[in-house]
């Protein structure tokens, strides 16, 4: 199997079975990309893994995981203004963070080209919503290409880079979760010879780059003109595809894009009569000429898309303007606006309009669902130890606020810690709001350390200035654990240049306690003290991410034998604190009521030992027991 590094550095053309994100990363190298930036977030972080697989000195490009998406986008935009082909990638909701600068970019002459890659998440597989970023393309006058497969992810990146450089404007490449993570055979091209140099080519004469008052209008005019020009190019683009490649037009047609278009094509294969599918490569601006041609040649069309009624609204408006006779169908049910398209769902939606041609698959009757398996904190996780200690210290009625990160999982039983969640870094300010005029219920907010740097610092400054009467627990694990351990500001690539406690002190935090998260009694006491403090109080609960720690330890020493804990059956009084309250996945509850430790899961961290009221959890030395 080809390694990531080979994938990124092979000079000649080749073919390989590859994941969408990796195919895209290779496409970046083939395009001669100079600068890439990102903030990690599913479904995109593997693009970064591919870019990082080439040792730093040998990379033909500069790459960084930035502090947040806005910072990442600004770095890529700045590099592009200097003449360097740049790309920026992040998850769907990351665009909200970047939006303040993004919205300006269509007015700028981006002489090097800039591709903004979005990982949208229909189905909310790993996001807090199903945000449909196709709306942003319209609002920001930035064209949007939508690949459906790994092969198209590479091809459309090359196309986006080339168009972006040519028109000196930003271009969106919108992927969705199962495009990013799909696997198929992809044909790759050679890497370019002789990339342009690093000399800075910024020139204000290319602009202006300052939209203020009267200069806004010529810049906006330019953005709109470029958008129209892009649309004309898309009318004749080979990225629009027809399924099946039929000889003549069928009576019925489907208009779609991205993965939903392939779902339609699969559904059509089982239809009772021929139905054509027009798969749009570019969904903003719409290829109006192409669409009119397709609709004029057919009696009826169905607009099939995921999430919001974006294509539907615009294509209906287009047909109205052009007075087309074609009858236009679209999704009917509210449920159709939720979740990700599949071929059976496509067939069901199409059957609502064309019952003679399509059949809705019968609902699957598989009986009672087995016990759910929700994600959990890993064995040894410092967050578990912290939650266990904090839960014991909280007075009745306390309100706990979660933030984004592994610790978000604390809202589930048995911890039920952090029962409000909005967005990255919100917890401090939402907590401050919950504390307003509230003297009867304590407010405790949680925050991870990567999120601290990402978006929480303004909220903390605000809480300090207003002396908000709340407690912030900073769960510091030294990494961005949730998305696969990318370095965050203050560790890794950036180095230990930003020590958190000193930074917090400098920001004016007056009450601060710094506790190792495994020391539960100490942490409980610190939290009580913090809650008693009138005004803003901060507790750092510190423990390294054990998943990362154990992986690195085993990488360094493959023969490493870790210790384990065991339940002393003569002492166990069946309180079930370990298995049901502390709830480390390593504990197993048997039908006879006994509790043992799962040998494949326990890492021997011992954070559970202190939780047993009967002192029945004991440490085993490496090699002991089974």
């Amino acid at each position, binding site marked *: *199997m080809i390694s990531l590094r080979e994938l990124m550095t092979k000079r000649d053309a080749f073919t390989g*079975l590859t*994941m969408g994100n990796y195919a895209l990363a290779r496409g970046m190298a083939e395009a001669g990309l100079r600068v890439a930036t990102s903030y990690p977030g*599913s*479904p995109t972080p*593997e693009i970064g893994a591919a870019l990082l697989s080439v040792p730093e000195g040998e990379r033909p490009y500069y790459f960084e995981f930035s502090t947040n998406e806005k910072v990442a986008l600004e770095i890529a935009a700045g590099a592009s203004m200097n003449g360097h082909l740049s790309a920026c990638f992040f998850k769907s909701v990351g665009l909200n963070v970047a939006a303040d600068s993004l919205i300006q970019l269509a007015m700028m002459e981006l002489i090097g080209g800039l591709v903004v890659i979005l990982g949208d998440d229909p189905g909310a*597989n*790993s996001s807090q919503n199903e945000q449909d970023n196709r709306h942003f393309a319209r609002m920001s006058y930035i064209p949007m290409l939508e690949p459906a*497969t790994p092969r198209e992810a590479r091809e459309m990146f090359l196309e986006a880079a080339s168009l972006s450089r040519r028109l000196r404007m930003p271009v969106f490449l919108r992927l969705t979760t*199962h495009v990013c*993570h*799909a*696997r*198929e*055979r992809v044909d790759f091209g050679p890497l370019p010879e002789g990339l342009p140099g690093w000399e800075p080519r910024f020139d204000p004469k290319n602009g202006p780059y300052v939209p203020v008052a009267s200069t806004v209008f010529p810049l906006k005019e330019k953005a709109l003109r470029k958008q129209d020009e892009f649309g004309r190019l898309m009318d004749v683009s080979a990225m629009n595809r027809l399924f099946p490649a039929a000889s003549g037009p069928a009576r019925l047609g489907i208009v779609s894009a991205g*993965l939903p278009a*392939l*779902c339609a*094509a*699969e559904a059509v*294969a089982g239809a009772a009569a021929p139905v054509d599918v027009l798969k749009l490569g570019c969904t903003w601006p719409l290829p109006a000429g192409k669409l009119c041609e397709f609709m004029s040649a057919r009696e009826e069309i169905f607009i099939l898309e995921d999430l919001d009624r974006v294509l539907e609204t615009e294509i209906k408006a287009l047909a109205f303007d052009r007075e087309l006779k074609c009858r236009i169908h679209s999704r009917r049910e509210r449920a159709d606006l939720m979740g990700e398209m*599949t*071929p*059976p769902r496509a067939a069901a939606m199409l059957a609502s309009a064309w019952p003679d041609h399509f059949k809705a*698959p019968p609902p*699957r009757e*598989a*009986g009672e*669902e*087995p*016990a*759910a*398996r*929700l*994600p*959990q*904190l*890993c064995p040894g996780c410092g967050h578990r130890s912290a939650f266990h200690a904090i839960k014991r210290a909280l007075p009745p009625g306390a309100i706990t606020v979660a933030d984004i990160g*592994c610790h978000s*999982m604390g809202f*589930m*039983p*048995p911890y039920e810690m952090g029962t409000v969640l909005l967005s990255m870094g919100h917890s401090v300010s939402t907590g401050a709001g919950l504390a307003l005029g509230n003297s009867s219920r304590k407010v405790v907010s949680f925050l991870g350390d990567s999120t601290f740097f990402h978006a929480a610092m303004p909220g903390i400054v605000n809480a300090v200035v207003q002396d908000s009467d709340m407690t912030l627990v900073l769960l510091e694990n030294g990494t961005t654990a*949730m*998305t696969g351990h990318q370095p965050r500001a203050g560790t890794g690539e950036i180095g230990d240049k930003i020590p958190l406690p000193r930074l917090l002190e400098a920001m004016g935090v007056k009450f601060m306690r710094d506790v190792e998260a495994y020391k539960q009694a100490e942490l409980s006491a610190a939290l009580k003290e913090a809650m008693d403090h009138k005004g803003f109080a901060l507790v750092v609960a510190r423990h390294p991410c054990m998943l990362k720690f154990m992986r690195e330890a085993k990488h360094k020493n493959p023969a490493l034998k870790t210790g384990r804990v065991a339940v002393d059956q003569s002492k166990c009084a069946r309180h*079930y604190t370990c*298995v*049901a309250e502390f*709830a480390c*996945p390593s*504990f*197993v*509850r048997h039908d006879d009521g006994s509790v043992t430790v*799962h040998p*494949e*899961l326990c890492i021997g961290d011992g954070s559970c030992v202190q939780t047993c009221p009967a002192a029945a959890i004991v440490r085993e030395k490496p090699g002991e027991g089974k």
Partner: protein
Amino acid sequence: MAFNIYICGVGGQGIGVLAAALAAAAEAAGHSVRGCDTHGLAQRHGSVSSHLRLGGDALTPRVPEGQADVVLALERLEGLRGALYALKPGGTLLYYDTVYQPITVRTGSRAYPAPGKVAARVEELGGKAVAVAVDGLADPRMQNAALLGRLAALGLVPGLTREVLRGALADTLGGRNLEANLAVFDKAAGAA
């Protein structure tokens, strides 16, 4: 018609390696391959799945509900869950018989299915359940190799012979623990 394989397990069990080896084997056997993994949140001991579709008429990467010819699972409860979601009548659930209790079982609010229960519910779907377990594995991730070995022995996937699967496993793993894994594969395939 595409031949669909639905692969599932618990986050952290190494399902990615299993899926990659199977995809490589399927290509080596001459199939056109499309598939996808689940990433992100799911890796923290939650249910994870990976999809593999063989044949040119599969345009999308996920196995549609109720259309899996084979469900391949690394854990018993996940095997049952995968079969209930994906297995088609006449299909086979092949699972590694290990037990990872979810929190609802550990708190006593739900029961964990016995092997007989899994077999009975899969039979209701018109399918068949096969469990595999190998004693004395040095590393639980070698359960992947055991599953592939038994898959080869049962001949459940067209073209995925013992030689093809063994070669793909070796290629996917590279140097790491290769001999031990191949020994597990051979044992499960009935060659040792």
